[in-house]
């Protein structure tokens, strides 16, 4: 089969799997698990074949016009270059791992068929975004991912956190998607087509008339989808969804879609240096803020969520300095180790019955209960902290190296300021990343206190996947950095000495300082017992997680942080801790800026409708009623009155007739 056919099958197979799952989920429950795993696995295989065939050579382009639109044409197009091929393999790989993991995680869940179908649908949409060569087709995949995220985050809709979080995720990403859409239309108007190749050609020939405006509009959508400041507030709350969903959507794929989009269309952004500065500032603020916030979170998944935001900030920072190879390299390695982190966190939550680090730090010997999770999570955390030789080191170094290159060597189209901003923020974030990774590891696995209860072995499906994902977390970076430039733009991705030393040193400093703080504070743990544990720890992991999520606020008063004096994060952040825990009060700011005015406007509209408009409506009814009451007063019941009126009328008529007859 031709590569194009295979490429078409890659998004198509999971879509068919989703459709079949939705249709047959209830009638043939035995088929649900195969229908979940096999199409995704097949898509992975085909994506691998396509990648091999494409091999970093010329991009595979193919298009067909479905129907004429009358103005700018919309075509079903494929554009598979090195970026697309490799990202598709990542997506297929992580999706397969997540589907297999979910069979164990949601073993007893009654809504598993729809869940699996939605995950398959999501996978298909992401693959469509990756392979698409037409911007509108990309937008279709973009939006389908958004709605799947809504459904999947709201999987535990019995908990109010999940309901609120799914709505928030949807609305905030939509808020970014509206300017995104306008930007796409503007872009296509200038280029005359939605085809990516045509657009890039227009940019190259200088045909883009409003590059800054278009770039900023597109950046709004990217900020929403990839959870960058200021539209990042949905991602920590989206941790109310099941852990496999967090692994797939909020670590490896959907949030990476924004980064991937910018990488695809980087020349459009590079055409406006103002947009690049904005992107750099956005990346810097995101990186630093999320790092600080991650240090204050109590929910293990929220730590990972803020970590994702920060790592995405790295990727957008790499894009801000014009190096998309570095950005996509970090995307690939981050996809692997972040997915691993989330899946391992899921195992930990299941085993401990809680998602609270404060509670876990008061359980002894948790790591003996989940040895697979312990070792794989250690690997992933080392990758996250960018310690050589793990994959994160190489990919993060490529980003920092690109920033340094942009800062010190003045390239024509990349402002040096962007480079400096990214470099400094990147180093600071490396420090913070190592700090919160160490904190997580210490609190989760080195707790002291009551022996952690033994709820049996974790399902094989879950543990096996952890090991599968550990391999690229360990090895991808070292093997890839030499090969990837051939797939990408050819820019060298080797770590440079300066940034490597700086980055690693900063990370080690962060880790050691955190360890010291932990030693300081861990003694306080025994003096202040804390914790909320799931009510049904023998249930499947999904049930345990749902209960853990639902119990966090009642136990600690807040969904994000816990009043734990033994938390090294409190010591490290000092007075900032209170602000960092709430994500620097951004939710409250948005509430005051947007939510309250909208609610006030809604109540104003309701008032107008009820008091003003309804008055007319009721007045229209009151008038006939009054008239009727007036007419009813003629019903005296007195016969003589009636007959008098009758005869009076007759006399009048007679006289009238006579006058007419005689006069006429």
């Amino acid at each position: 089969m031709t590569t194009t056919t295979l490429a078409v099958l890659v998004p198509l197979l999971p879509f068919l799997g989703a459709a079949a799952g939705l249709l047959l989920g209830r009638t043939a429950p035995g088929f649900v698990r195969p229908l979940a795993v096999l199409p995704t696995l097949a898509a992975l295989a085909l994506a691998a074949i396509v990648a091999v065939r494409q091999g970093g050579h010329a991009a595979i382009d193919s298009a067909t016009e479905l129907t004429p639109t009358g103005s700018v044409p919309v075509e079903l197009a494929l554009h598979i270059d090195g970026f697309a091929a490799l990202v598709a393999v990542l997506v297929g790989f992580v999706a397969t791992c997540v589907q297999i993991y979910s069979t164990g995680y949601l073993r007893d869940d009654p809504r598993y068929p729809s869940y699996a179908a939605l995950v398959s649908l999501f996978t298909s949409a992401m693959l469509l975004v990756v392979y698409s060569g037409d911007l509108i087709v990309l937008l279709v995949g973009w939006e389908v991912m958004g709605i799947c995220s809504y459904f999947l985050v709201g999987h535990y809709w019995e908990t109010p956190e999940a309901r609120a979080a799914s709505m928030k995720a949807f609305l905030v990403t939509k808020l970014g998607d509206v300017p995104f859409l306008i930007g796409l239309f503007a872009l296509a108007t200038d280029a005359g087509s939605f085809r990516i190749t045509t657009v890039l050609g227009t940019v190259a020939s200088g045909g883009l008339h409003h590059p800054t405006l278009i770039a900023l509009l597109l950046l709004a959508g990217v900020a929403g989808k990839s959870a960058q400041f200021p539209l990042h507030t949905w991602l920590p709350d989206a941790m109310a969804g099941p852990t496999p969903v967090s692994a797939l959507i909020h670590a490896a794929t959907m949030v990476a879609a924004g980064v991937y989009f910018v990488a695809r269309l980087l020349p459009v952004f590079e055409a406006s240096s103002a947009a690049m500065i904005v992107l750099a500032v956005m990346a810097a603020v995101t990186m630093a803020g999320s790092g600080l916030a991650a240090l204050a979170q109590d929910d293990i998944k929220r730590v990972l969520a803020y970590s994702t935001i920060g790592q995405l900030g790295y990727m957008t920072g790499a894009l801000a300095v014009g190096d998309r190879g570095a950005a996509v390299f970090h995307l690939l390695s981050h996809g692997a180790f972040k997915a691993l982190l989330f899946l391992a966190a899921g195992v930990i939550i299941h085993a401990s019955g809680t998602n609270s680090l404060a509670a876990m730090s008061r359980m002894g010997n948790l790591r003996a209960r989940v040895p697979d999770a312990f070792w794989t999570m250690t690997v992933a955390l080392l990758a996250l902290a960018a310690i050589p030789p793990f994959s994160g080191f190489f990919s993060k170094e490529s980003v920092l190296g690109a920033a340094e290159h942009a800062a010190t060597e003045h390239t024509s189209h990349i402002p040096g300021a962007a480079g400096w901003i990214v470099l400094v923020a990147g180093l600071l974030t490396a420090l913070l990343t190592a700090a919160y990774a160490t904190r997580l590891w210490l609190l989760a696995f080195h707790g002291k206190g009551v022996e952690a209860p033994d709820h049996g072995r974790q399902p094989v499906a879950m543990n096996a996947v952890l090991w599968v994902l550990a391999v690229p977390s360990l090895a991808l970076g070292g093997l890839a950095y030499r090969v990837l430039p051939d797939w990408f733009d050819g820019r060298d991705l080797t770590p440079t000495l300066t940034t490597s030393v700086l980055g690693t040193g900063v990370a080690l400093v962060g880790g050691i300082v955190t360890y010291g703080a932990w030693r300081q504070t861990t003694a306080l743990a025994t003096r202040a017992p804390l914790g909320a544990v799931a009510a049904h720890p023998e249930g499947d992991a999904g049930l345990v997680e749902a209960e853990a999520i639902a119990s966090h606020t009642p136990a600690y008063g807040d969904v994000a942080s816990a009043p734990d004096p033994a938390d090294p994060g409190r010591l490290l952040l000092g007075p900032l801790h209170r602000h960092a825990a709430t994500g620097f009060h951004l939710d409250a700011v948005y509430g005051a800026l947007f939510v309250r005015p909208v609610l006030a406007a809604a109540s104003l509209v309701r008032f107008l409708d009820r008091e003003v408009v309804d008055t007319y409506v009721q007045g229209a009814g009151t008038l006939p009623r009054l008239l009727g009451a007036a007419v009813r007063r003629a019903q005296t019941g007195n016969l003589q009155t009636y007959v008098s009126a009758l005869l009076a009328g007759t006399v009048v008529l007679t006289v009238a007739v006579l006058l007419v007859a005689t006069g006429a």
Partner: protein
Amino acid sequence: MTLAATATATATLAATHTRGFLSPTGVEIAFLLVGLVTFGAALVTVTTKQLVHAALWLVVALGGIAVEYLLLTAEFIAWVQVLIYVGSVVVLLLFGLMLTKAPIGRSPDADSGNRWAALTVAVAAAAALVWVVVDAFRATWTDLDGPASGSTAVTGASLFQNWVLPFEALSVLLLAALVGAIVLSRKSKAESSSPPVNSRPATGSSPSVPDSRNHTIGRKGAVEGNGPSSPDNPAEKEGAR
């Protein structure tokens, strides 16, 4: 001959045309006088406050009309008028007044509050009708000479030759009226057994028309007792002729 005939015709015509408007003949004067009496009696009937007097003045009015019929040479009808209207209808009315306890003497509320509207309507109607009639029949005379057009022989012949079917239908109507009046005015057994509950205590407190209630308690059978027991005209009570 034709000339004589036309002369006679012209003379008759001339004689007819020399009659002026309202040039009264004797019949007309008599008609006018009797008409005044009739009209006056009718006015009193509808305005008097004494109910029984109203009935009696009605007799005068009806009698006046009978005389008018005679003047119009409709003898049979005049006597039928006297027989039926004066004879039975008025008697029925008087019985009705008695049985409904109409007050003897003046009753101040014989006229309802509607009377001004009624007066207006009646005057307007009168004006309209009289004007129309006068305008229409300004030049019409009836010839009353010659044989009576309403003699018994003529009327009888006409009735039983041309109007047989309506005549028979009328007798059926009278039968229906007879039966209906009997049914309506009869007190059924169930009706007569229920009153003890609510009529005793109420009767003392509700003389809604102050003049029409002088009943005594305990003799609800009195009404029907009065009916069949009046030996004079039980038939008049229960039916119409």
